[in-house]
């Protein structure tokens, strides 16, 4: 067992995700500081709790019917989705409407026969459906309890919450599963997290940024969050089960899931032996610096993590669609940014002293000198040295250790961390500036980047 530590490595810097298990990353990120949960389920949430949306609702869900409008609002893309749907047979006899079989006339004549066929789901037994019908959502105590427990705004209908719980492995029909909502929610989560990290810690190295992003909104973090929210899953999905359960087709124990894992480097010039560098991760990989997985078939059984993650993302997307940006940001702040993530624990420097010298040379500081501030027990079994790194007369960092070398290296690490973890005083997030007066916008600090050795 021969190591080459530190020197002559083709790169240096931070290898957090490579060096520790991903589970530990999440464990750091999930210590919650949540608001007290609302545990009461009030009586009016059961009796006549149909959602009454405003007249001009722009969301294209079929069940958003209002008594005031004469016609049922129809999504203009609906015929198109019908042609794209790979799941033809049940689609023609299911409806997204909660008040199925109502008396509203269809929008245009050529769709009338199709619509009348679709709305005719009274005769279908629920066991024949792949997922619970939207009308069942109103009768589910679990859904009402979840809605209240998460303090979701009343503008978010129970039916959308039920749809967010249907993973595509349970119901491949994109009109009834949460895939579209999850894509929107994933993009929103990625945007809000990365802008928070980048604006508040402008000097963060890209690998730490990837790890922090994954710790906030990665698969394991989201799955743990769903568990904390009290999401339970079905044993087997179907139309007759409670819609308050997470509907997905579960992967059998011991079954292979790795066939969808990416192979090779995922880069175009793989035959030339190109490696996956940090920079190419920004271009080719996903928001966590991981390689993109090949998309499995819609009805492929999945692990619980994947289904739970899709629920949390879909809930984020649904909140955005129904309640708008301000509520979504508040939801994000209370459930994600309230979690403690110690960024200073995510660094791992291989050659900290060299990095610090390069940093000082780049920034025009005097070269760093390690100085012995205090010591005790030099001749004993357990000495302690306190060493500070100085640039000129200014102290950059301080470290304590059992040997002079250890204290010197730790002081350099502390100096590098305090450089990378710089936090500006006043930060305006770009997403907060939407709708703000342009004169009030204050540009954020953009750093020139980490030290390359």
């Amino acid at each position, binding site marked *: *067992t*021969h*190591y080459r*530590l530190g020197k002559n490595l083709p790169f240096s810097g931070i290898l957090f995700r490579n060096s520790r298990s991903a589970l530990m990353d999440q464990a750091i990120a999930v210590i919650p500081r949540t608001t007290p949960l609302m545990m009461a389920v009030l009586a009016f949430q059961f009796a006549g709790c149909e959602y009454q949306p405003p007249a001009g609702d722009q969301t294209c869900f079929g069940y958003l019917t209002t008594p005031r409008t004469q016609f049922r609002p129809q999504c203009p893309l609906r015929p198109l989705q019908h042609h794209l749907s790979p799941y033809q047979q049940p689609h023609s006899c299911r409806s997204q409407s909660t008040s199925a079989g109502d008396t509203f006339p269809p929008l245009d004549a050529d769709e009338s026969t199709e619509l009348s066929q679709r709305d005719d789901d009274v005769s279908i037994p629920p066991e024949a459906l792949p997922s619970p019908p939207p009308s069942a959502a109103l009768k589910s105590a679990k859904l009402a309890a979840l809605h209240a427990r998460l303090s979701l705004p009343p503008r978010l209908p129970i039916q959308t919450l039920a749809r967010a719980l249907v993973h595509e492995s349970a119901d491949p029909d994109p009109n009834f599963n949460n895939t579209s909502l999850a894509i929107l929610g994933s993009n929103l989560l990625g945007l809000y997290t990365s802008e928070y990290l980048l604006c508040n810690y402008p000097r963060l190295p890209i690998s730490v940024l990837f790890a922090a992003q994954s710790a906030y909104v990665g698969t394991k973090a989201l799955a743990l969050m769903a568990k904390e929210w009290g999401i339970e899953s079905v044993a087997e999905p179907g139309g007759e089960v409670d819609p308050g359960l997470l509907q997905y087709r579960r992967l059998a124990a011991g079954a292979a899931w790795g066939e969808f894992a990416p192979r090779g480097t995922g880069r175009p010039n793989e035959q030339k032996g190109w490696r996956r560098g940090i920079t190419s991760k920004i271009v080719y990989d996903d928001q966590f610096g991981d390689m993109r997985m090949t998309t499995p078939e819609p009805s492929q059984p999945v692990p619980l993590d994947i289904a739970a993650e899709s629920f949390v993302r879909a809930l984020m997307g649904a909140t955005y669609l129904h309640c708008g940006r301000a509520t979504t940001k508040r939801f994000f702040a209370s459930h994600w940014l309230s979690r403690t993530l110690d960024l*200073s*624990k995510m*660094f*791992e*420097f*291989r050659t*900290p002293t060299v990095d610090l010298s390069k940093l000082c040379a780049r920034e025009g*500081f005097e070269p760093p*000198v*390690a*100085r*012995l*501030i205090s010591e005790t027990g030099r001749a004993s079994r357990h000495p302690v040295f306190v*060493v*500070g790194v*100085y*640039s000129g*007369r*200014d*102290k*950059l*960092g*301080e*470290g*304590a*250790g059992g040997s*002079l070398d*250890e*204290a*010197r*290296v*730790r002081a350099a*690490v*502390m*100096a590098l*961390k*305090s*450089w990378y*973890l*710089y*936090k*500006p*005083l006043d930060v305006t997030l770009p997403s907060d500036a939407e709708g703000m007066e342009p004169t009030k916008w204050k540009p954020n*600090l953009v750093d020139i980047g980490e030290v390359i050795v």
Partner: protein
Amino acid sequence: MSALPLTRPMRPLSTKSASLFLPHLTTRHASSTRRHKKLNIIPPAPSYNLSATPNSTTHSRSAKPSPRAPSATHIIFNPPSAAPSPTITPPKFLPASDPRRALYSSFTAASTRSALQSRTPLTAATGTSLASQSLLPARPSANLPPPVRGSDTYEKKYHLTDADIAEIRKLRTEDPYTWTRWRLAEKFGCSQFFVSLVVKAPEKAAEVEASHQAARDRWGNRKRMADEDRKRRMASWGR
């Protein structure tokens, strides 16, 4: 175990011949115990100084305040020492536009001056970070602490010419066993690292590496584990 106080020394047997058969134990003497106890007595933190800032109303009402109860109404601030936090950016690392630059420098100057004048350490003042020293701060004109290694005035010389570098390459390539890095560095007044940058001897490096590996292969379990532990500890310095 026994009713004897622990401070009582273990008395050896009186006969010299009997003491030969006893194990050689260290004994604790009353004198050393008292000396060490006295060393542990630390003067209280300045904010715990109860008589310095008496609460006049409390004193006037109570006839005789208890000697143990704090009579002052201020908060006793005596935090344990802590390692500096990396979230506090040193002033040199702050961008020029950051208002904390001016705030830090004025605060440091004022606090150092007041601490030196009143001869109380910075930890006594409220609002200081937990990492501030419990000793008096150094005077601004004082010398910096001594460097850990090397001297203060280390300057790179850049004295080798192209001819010197060619000479280094020639010597090292011809006979790497005679002209080792150490010997070349001594001859040309540069560092061994610089020699390795200028010219490499891969055959010799492989040979040396093989001999080291052979030596490592002869290690037993204990030595191997100690080596791995040491390397693991060293890797943790960078975290």
